């Protein structure tokens, strides 16, 4: 079973190096306007791509996911806090599923 620990350590090392290299090596402010703009848009692009369409299969039923998604959009558009958006959309999906089971 010790092979399992080798797997675990190997993947941890690879993943950590990826995370640590830029943070430790890039100390200066990047001057290029293009790269600065690019980095500005990275989180929006990444999170949007990760959210949709994956959110449609986040719960056991498409309909509860869609309702949760809609509620989250509505609340976020009205600038509610992270905790509010996350918990109310979960609650909405939960209520929808109460009717489904």
């Amino acid at each position, binding site marked *: 079973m010790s092979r399992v620990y080798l797997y675990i350590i190997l993947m941890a090392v690879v993943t950590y190096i990826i995370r640590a290299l830029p943070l430790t090596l890039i100390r200066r402010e990047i001057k290029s306007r*293009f790269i600065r703009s690019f*980095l500005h848009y990275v*989180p929006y692009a990444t999170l949007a791509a990760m*959210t949709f369409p994956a959110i449609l299969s986040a719960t056991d039923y498409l309909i509860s996911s869609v309702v949760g998604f809609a509620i989250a959009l509505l609340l976020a558009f009205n600038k509610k806090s992270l905790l509010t958006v996350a918990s109310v959309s979960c609650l909405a999906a939960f209520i929808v599923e109460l009717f489904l089971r």
Partner: protein
Amino acid sequence: MSGSSKHEFFEGCHDAIPICLGYIAVSFAFGIEASKIGMTTFQAAITSLLNVTSAGQFSALDVIARNGSFIELAILQFIINLRYMLMSTALSQKLSSSVGTMKRLAISYGVTDEIFALSVLRKGELKPPYSYGLIVTSVFGWVFGTVLGAFSGQIMPQRLISCLGLAIYGMFIAIIIPDTRTSKAVLGTVVSAMALSSIFTYVPVIAEHISSGFRIIIITVIVAAAAAYFAPIKEDEGGDVA
């Protein structure tokens, strides 16, 4: 710790509560899968503690289950987690240049999609204690959920697990949507990324050949580069990546 460091730390802990809840749901599923392939609860927990990466860990289970090669596992993790390099680069611009190497190494441990999102969109400079707060709360949820899942897939009722799956996405939405009201470029970025992501997911030929980790990298690079080209940020937006 000084008063303001403490304040930053607890603010980080507080802000990470949705991450913690979402992580419990996701890592619970990981714990169940890990025990299915014969890993012990301890091994599953250590995996979560050392890696803190959902896509990476789930994909690794497949390699471990069939006794795959170490090279394969290393390449797989590298590709799936390559997006952390983009995130880490963006974060490097949020830190004051006076932040030392040890602190940077500590912050690096917690570069996940969710922690990154909260860190990079925080107004002003990123203070290390804030990151530590985010990391402690999030990793607690990640490991706790793994242990619960590995220990017994029956502890939590399925209908609760099902709904908790939305928590992480709800948080992502809360992060990206408010800025679409004030910036057309951000709106365009969000909509294009979602559209591309749908194409990559549903068009059969593409979906079969591109892993989800790679998909995110490709979309991020294309969309963020296009946005940077067509709508470069103003210079006075300065060191603030938000």
